[in-house]
């Protein structure tokens, strides 16, 4: 039938270009044009590299958040978790220098601690949510307070600073590059590709979609709903840990002000990217673009002084709304 031929054609094309993802992408392009118009320096390779490097933190965390949100959950604790894991890493590495020296082993052990803590923190969020049958919003609001307090406590209210002896060993993980591409960007890309594969090409990802879209149907389809949901929080924790691993070498410190409001930024990146807050539909590439968009907005505001500084927040808010509006408008046209 001509009918099925047509639909086959459409899906074949869909495999190469994800049309739905075009919305956020177009909005990002619009932002870049705006940036270029405002300041020549915007398109300089240094500035672009800054933008992509910076978006790596929120971006990596947001990739994790895409899983949580797709499966119908939410995690407000990521910012605090990042601060806590950074703090713990720094304490561990500073302590290890005495025995292991300021070499690669110490850094690797610090990284291992980070991963363990991330996975554990995620598992706690997941298990309390699923076993306790408490709304994820409440659980992660609680752990948000807990992780932040813990880092404040560890730092005695101040700042935990990475020993200068080890900074040089660890430094390349933020400041280095691979074939000219900054390491954080490479890591971000790898996490995004990994996230994409996991969400879109594996049974696990499919199950996340199913749970977010209808938990009952998922249960009746032999899916261990609680286990999968918990795993999404573990993935979120792991992503926070990865983000932390590249964050710590940047400034070599952690304090109670580390990662404040990252949760909002991460969730915003996810939603700007087209994932639905109610669950059931998630898009990793959208999330990546959402994270880059948020960073770009901040960057553009720093590149101009026509707007009163006091209005930065307003401009940021407006641009977010308009960008999302644009991308929605785009969708609708496509449908008809």
């Amino acid at each position, binding site marked *: 039938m001509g009918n099925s031929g047509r639909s086959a054609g459409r899906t074949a094309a869909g495999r190469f270009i994800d049309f739905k993802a075009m919305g956020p992408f177009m909005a990002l392009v619009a932002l870049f044009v705006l940036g270029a118009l405002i300041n020549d320096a915007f398109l300089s390779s240094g500035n672009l590299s800054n933008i992509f490097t910076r978006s790596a933190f929120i971006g990596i965390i947001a990739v994790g958040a895409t899983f949580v949100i797709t499966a119908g959950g939410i995690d407000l604790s990521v910012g605090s978790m990042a601060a806590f894991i950074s703090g713990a890493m720094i304490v561990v590495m500073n302590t290890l220098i005495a025995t292991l020296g300021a070499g690669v082993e110490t850094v690797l052990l610090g990284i291992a601690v980070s991963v363990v803590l991330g996975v554990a923190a995620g598992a706690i969020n997941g298990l309390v949510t699923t076993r306790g049958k408490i709304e994820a919003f409440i659980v992660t609001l609680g752990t948000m307070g807990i992780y932040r307090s813990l880092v404040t406590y560890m730092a005695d209210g101040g700042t935990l600073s990475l020993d200068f002896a080890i900074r040089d060993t660890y430094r390349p993980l933020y400041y280095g590059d691979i074939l000219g591409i900054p390491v954080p960007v490479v890591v971000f890309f790898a996490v995004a590709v990994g996230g994409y594969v996991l969400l879109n090409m594996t*049974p696990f990802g499919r199950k996340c979609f199913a749970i977010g879209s209808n938990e009952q149907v998922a249960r009746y389809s032999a899916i261990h709903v609680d286990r999968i949901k918990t795993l999404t929080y573990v993935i979120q924790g792991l992503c926070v840990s990865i983000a932390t691993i590249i964050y710590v070498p940047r400034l070599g410190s952690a304090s109670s002000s580390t990662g404040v409001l990252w949760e909002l930024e991460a969730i915003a990146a996810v939603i700007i990217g087209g994932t639905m807050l109610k669950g*059931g539909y998630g898009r990793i590439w959208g999330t990546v673009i959402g994270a880059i968009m948020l960073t770009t907005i901040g960057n553009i505001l720093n590149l101009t002084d026509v707007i009163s500084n006091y209005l930065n927040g307003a401009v940021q808010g407006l641009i977010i709304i308009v960008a999302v509006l644009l991308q929605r408008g785009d969708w609708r046209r496509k449908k008809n």
Partner: protein
Amino acid sequence: MKNAAKNAAEPVVSGQLRLSARQICKSFGAAQVLFDVPIDLYAGEVHALLGENGAGKSTLVKILSGYHAPDSGEIVLDGSPVSFDSSEDGEARGIILIHQELNLADQLTVEENIFLGREMTRGWFLDKAAMRDEAARLLAGLQCDIDPCTRIRDLPVSDRQMVEIAKALSKQADILILDEPTAVLTGREVDILFDQIRRLRERGVAILYISHKLDEIKAIADRVTVLRDGSHITTQAVAGLEKDDMARLMVGRDIAQMFPDQIADPSAPVVLSVRNLSVPGQVYDAGFDLRRGEVLGFAGIVGAGRTALMEAIIGLRPRSSGAILRDGQPVVIDNLRDAGRCGIAYLTKDRKGSGLLLNMEMRPNLTLLALDRFGRFLLNRKAEDAALEKAIAAFDIRAADRTTKVGDFSGGNQQKLLLAKVMECNPDIVIIDEPTRGIDIGTKSQIYHFIGDLTAQGKSVILLSSEMTEMLGLSDRIIVMAAGRITGILDGEDRTEHQIMRHATGISDNQGVSVHG
């Protein structure tokens, strides 16, 4: 036939022409669903609308009642052309539609749903007492014994349907359209509904009635319009038509034999035994044996506990006691995965609530239950597509487009997809709860033969159905349940409607005893 065709333009009863549609066309995206369809509705007639799954019946009635706008064509109400902007316009003009899929807010109560959007008020406030009384009165009129304060999500599907009917009846329809209202109802409830329909017909209400149950159409309808692939085939008086004629008009060919004629070997080995299984408040001390290659029917009135029993067996409901033996070996089944490992699969009767992901396309729905078979680490898209291809062919699923969301499918095609989904995990034992709900007669026969093929391959089927013909035509043995207990096992010559009803209701006298005892 000629005689009948001549009747087409004329109503059987002498009412006024109320609603008439001309040359209705409708497309979704690139797929045209209706082609120049006409229909006339007269006051005081029951007009049946027949057609295969996906023929466009639901689309047509949604257009008539204002939920969809036609692409072209004209709707004339009481002599003047109308075009509804929304269903509210339709309802304001007295056209009420009961949707094929339930349209109730799960978290609200029966009373809240019935009066949703047109609450009774005293001053600025809700008149809850009046609404509760009115709801109780409406439900009593349908002999439906549910508390208006129950939440919809706590009701069985059949009760939900009765709530929908009560809601529609409370709207004082001039033109009442019912889209497969009886798909989820049992015989007793169908009788009650028909009484109501006859009463409305006497009051001069025009009724458009969609059903795949040809008996019902014979029983209630005056005229019938048949659609096939979106085109109008004929409109005739029912009186001149036999069921076979209607079936032929619908599918465009003869339906050879409805049921497969296999008889299971009564000495085949037992593959599944259930012993002393109880679910608190729902099932008491149930036990049975299932043999290889047999179809074991479970009959009973609504709420008898059949679904609860089956869901307890496969680990979807907590059981307080009971043992399960697979091929004679005790097995532990705590969840559906365990059940799957034992080769048991379950087809739910609630396709919208627990069967299909309505916001997704066909492919992920089809493979969801058997997902592990499509790759442990990476999903094999090719294999999924191949499976979809096969399922579409095997179950004759008709969807305009593979990217269409399953929620936009015609009801029957959803059911077929659900069946395909369950069969995708290739089970040895299939528990099928209401397999032909909303399925057209041609496809029904396909499904029956499909079940026959399964048993011929040595697989076993447990069939839960409220359709008596289906129960009798397919089952080798029939177990009857009432009030959570097994009250009879019917074999051979005992498998009659009379016997089933006797066990299903006769025992209800004992229910009081058992509750107190």
